[in-house]
């Protein structure tokens, strides 16, 4: 369980909430569609340090379905979809679906207190792409962007913009990849 560490962080969170609140108020509901990648290609390399100070390498996750989500704490749709990623992980993690959330350009002092505000708080690996080089390699054009890597290591789906990742249809779509 993450907790807000100090008063400065609390102020940062409050200010951030104030800044995004008018924008969040009018946002449409999140959809749950994933776009198939019609010509599957090998997923680009992804080897980053996690919040737990461990190196996570996508290549070591062959055989699983891996949801790679690029995000930042200041990105309102990223904040909205984060709980659904945790729900997905809780529901499908033991069936072979894992989630890697790649934070772009921020540090542990910013990300850690934010995660304490997410309900349920993420238990999947949070990775740090501090110089945005991985983001560039994955050809991301806007945040959030999410890719689904199949058990064979190839890109299977992508989603630009926030999604409801724990929608039953989306979870079925991911589980079906394990049967292929």
């Amino acid at each position, binding site marked *: 369980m993450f907790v807000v560490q100090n008063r400065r962080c609390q102020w*940062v969170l409050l*200010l*951030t909430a104030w*800044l995004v*609140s*008018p*924008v969040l*108020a*009018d*946002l*449409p509901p999140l*959809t*749950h*569609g994933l*776009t198939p990648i019609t010509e599957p290609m090998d997923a680009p390399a992804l080897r980053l340090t996690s919040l737990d100070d461990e190196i996570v390498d996508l290549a070591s996750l062959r055989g699983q379905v891996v949801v790679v989500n690029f995000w*930042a704490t*200041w*990105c*309102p*749709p990223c904040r909205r979809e984060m709980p659904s990623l945790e729900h997905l992980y809780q529901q499908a993690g033991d069936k072979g679906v894992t989630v890697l959330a790649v934070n*772009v*350009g*921020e*540090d542990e002092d910013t990300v850690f207190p934010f995660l304490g505000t997410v309900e349920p708080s993420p238990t999947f690996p949070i990775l740090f792409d*501090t*110089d*945005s080089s991985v*983001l560039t390699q994955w050809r991301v*054009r*806007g*945040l959030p962007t999410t890719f689904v890597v199949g058990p064979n290591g190839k890109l299977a789906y*992508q*989603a*630009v*913009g*926030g*999604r409801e990742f724990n929608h039953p249809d989306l979870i079925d779509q991911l589980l079906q990849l394990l049967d292929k």
Partner: protein
Amino acid sequence: MLREIPWYLIPVIPFLLWGESALAQTRTVDPETGSVTWETQVHGVTLSLTQILPDQARAFYVNRGLPTTATESYAKSCVYMTVLRNDSAPGVVHFRLSDWSVVSTTGSQPPIGAATWLKRFEADELSQSARIAFRWAQFPPEQAYQPGGDWNQGMLSAGLPPDSEFDLIARLDVAGEPFEGVLKNVRCAK
């Protein structure tokens, strides 16, 4: 793109699309902040602009390490939270921000993109984290949205003084056909 359309239809297209856009446009005011949102939904695509007040833009970027000088010029440049979404278009929606036009009494020019701002900020020596936050909080300079819900939300600078009024012409490529979405009489926050 215009070359793909029969020549005899070209004069008609702006009237059809422009008229449809104007009819679909809505304007709402947030009762708490006073920010105004302009939105149009045409051809299965939603486009909206929500005023970001200069104080909101300042607070957002100062909080992310942008120097005061850089923040100040950006905050006063008529900034909007912009949402573009492919709800039910007949195919992929693609755009380049450099093809869009901000049309005001002073002329017509594209919105000011992230790359232009970052060039202006060169003398301010932004930190890596501030530069990344600025770049990725901006509306993408180019993007493709698949049908069924792809979308982005980001900040867009019209590059006009506070309280200016303008029309935004968003030129899109929808399923391979050129298309214009127009938001008329949009006003910059004071």
